[in-house]
């Protein structure tokens, strides 16, 4: 039995400990906003926050989560920080097909939590584990910069 926190609620998992966190989140908890783009840790579509830091859930075994706190977009989207990111992503046109978006938001949150006023280079670095094939990234970089300015004091 593994006990961990999922979107701020204590949950238990009583299955195969080597299963991918990605599958557990999607199949057992119905959290389908966590996407599978590659299954090999390369694209970031499956990114979640584990104790506040971005992790690729496709290469994380559920068994390694004992006592840790997992946050997905489902839990995060009620926060004040999310609202700022939401506005900024809309304004900057940072969402096209949307498949990379949940992972990008997770990466943005983890970046801003650590560094509330990142430089452009730091933003690029912060989302370099998240692939986006639609936007060319610059509008996502704009969105995160905009969020850091609009959301002063939130992070």
């Amino acid at each position: 039995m593994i006990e961990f926190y999922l979107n701020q609620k204590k949950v238990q998992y009583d299955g195969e400990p080597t299963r991918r966190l990605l599958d557990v989140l999607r199949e057992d908890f119905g959290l389908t906003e966590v996407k599978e783009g590659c299954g090999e840790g390369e694209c970031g579509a499956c990114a979640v926050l584990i104790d506040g830091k971005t992790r690729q859930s496709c290469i994380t075994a559920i068994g390694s989560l004992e006592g840790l706190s997992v946050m997905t977009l489902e839990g995060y989207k009620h926060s004040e920080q999310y609202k700022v990111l939401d506005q900024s992503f809309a304004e900057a046109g940072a969402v096209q097909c949307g498949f990379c978006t949940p992972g990008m938001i997770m990466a943005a949150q983890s970046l801003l939590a650590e560094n509330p006023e990142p430089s452009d280079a730091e933003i690029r670095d912060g989302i370099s584990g998240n692939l986006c094939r639609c936007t060319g990234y610059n509008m996502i970089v704009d969105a995160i910069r905009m969020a850091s300015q609009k959301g002063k004091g939130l992070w």
Partner: protein
Amino acid sequence: MVNISQSITKKDHIEKMTGETQYIADYVIPGMNHAKIVRAWRPHARIKSVRFPEMETGYFVIDYRDVPKNGVKIIRSEQPVFAENEVRFIGEAVAMIVGADVIKVNAYVEQVKIEYEDLPAALSLDASDDAMVSYHYAHGAVTDAFQKAARVIEKTYYTGHQEQAYIEPQGAIGLYQDGKITVIASMQCPYYVKDAVTFAMDVPAESVQIIQSTTGGAFGGKEDYPSLIGCMVAAAAKKTGKPVRLIFERGEDMTVTTKRHPAQIVYSAALDEHDGILGIKADIKLDGGAYEGLSGVVLQRSMIAAAGVYRFPCIEVSGQVMMTHTVPNGAFRGFGAPQSFFAIERFMTHLATHLGIQDPVDFKKRYFVKQGDSTATGGSFRYPVILPEMLETAESLSRYTEKHERYRMQTGRYRKGIGMSFFLHGCGFTGSAEKDYIKSVIKLVKYPDDTIELLTSTTDMGQGVKTTFAKIVAEVMALPIDQIKIVNPDTDRVPNSGPTVASRSLMIVGKLLERAAKRLKSEYVAGKYQEVEERYVHPEMVPWDITSFSGDAYPTYSWGINVIEVEVDTLLAETKLIGVWGIFDVGRAIDETIMRGQIEGGMLQGIGYASSEKMEIIGGAVRQSGLSDYIIPTAKDTVPFVTRTLDNPYDGGPFGAKGAGELTIIGSAPAYAEAVEQAAGVPVAIIPMTPERLLAAMKQQKRGER
């Protein structure tokens, strides 16, 4: 009228941002079974036998016997849904195992034994002498020009495979209920899939329903391919009576789905004694892979694009799609044009170099087409061509001329280079396809609560048509955008307004929406249910003849100029992007932010094509099987772009809009190659220009100097 180009929040922003939107892998349908494809591992072989393992009840084999007409209807239907006697490429589907437990399904797939008898295989363009498609055209006195020529210069250019690399892999779900087949899938063209499933399952069209699931990127990769997997899940659902889900893994998607055609393009120019161009010849060979699919149409566009943005006294173009025993190639943003533009832009530069002209732009602009000029196929550029204005803008933003001059004399390890490319994109289908085959229909429905629903078969795959379509109707009718409703197409609800391809959606379907909105506005009765339908009307054009490649190939053209600046570390042969400028004429942008998104995304995809996106076929198998070895750009590989769209409204499009989506990928590769060539001081005639290739070229040059 307020400015239509002013951006609004996208119609589907909230559902995508919150992660609530359902992509194909997110559907949970009670009783759903999983499917996994059994693939052949020989490039070319006769299948002697297939042995399936003993399976538990509830597990099924689906193969050619379950498909009444075993062909994927694309243009012809030469590719089987499941191979029967022969396999033609590594990864070709032989069967599919279906059942409730995905782990068991995978295990059964592993246990299938296929016995082959190997047949001779052509594994590359060079090795093939089998032309699946051939075309030829000539306009003007070409033979004469080459006879008269003071000299003839010939160069050859090569471009590689490119994988669309949409972040959402391919996937489809099939359902069967009361004699009705339903396919839900990540796709661009619901009616293509409907046609294919109707044909393969040999059922009446009314009994096939296709629904688009929100599509996580497509770029052409979901134009033709979903027809194949749509047939597979349809056959499986019909046989098992259960919903069947087929979702590709990345490695599978990367190695077996259609890609951009590799090309070999030979150009020659006949020059007079004053170094003027008398005539041009181009010979284009595309690697079609194992099945023809859309390759013939891709070749048509390549060949028409062969003249670039230039007016030559005469031109002759021949083209062939060669059959190889490799993964079939198909649609990818640009559809044959990126290969040709890479080659013609490089060729014009190399001609200039050859003639001792320092700045290739000086040479190229002498040949720019103008309004009223005839096209390579004897049609007409009948609308304003604003290349000179665009060039001025490009120059003033990028300071190209001054940099190009400064970078000519460099020494030291790090050297800079700058390149400029000129390109166009014929908007919409080639020739008369809109009139002869597509015959688009759209519908507006006004409900008693006065909300208006747009019914079209156009899919939003991220390019934003839900928003731009809604804006067109809202603007015409002077209604708030929230009163306009648009959802993913379902062929039971929407008329056939054609596929979402060829940069046709906004210009063609958008125009029909504009017309319908005008009518609905004039007939508007508040609180009443109303419907308005509009049908495609062909514009005045020089009739297109495919046998001679003559006439107007496109109703109009969109235009672009790209400037790219790089720095090459000559020791490690690594290239760093420094600056990117993109100037475009798309008529009028229906939404500035959406347009910028198309530019930024398309241009970076083009830079990837030119630089890092190398795909190799070794022994018939695609070597790059993941995003760790097929390298698409990350946020760290790019820089801020400077982009502009200049207004040049086109009557035939809504609010003056022309095609835009594909144009944006075309100019990056030639501009990038030109910049690398200047910085590294070696000719670039092949893409992707990876560090390994650049290093080899620089070494070779050094050896040559000694």
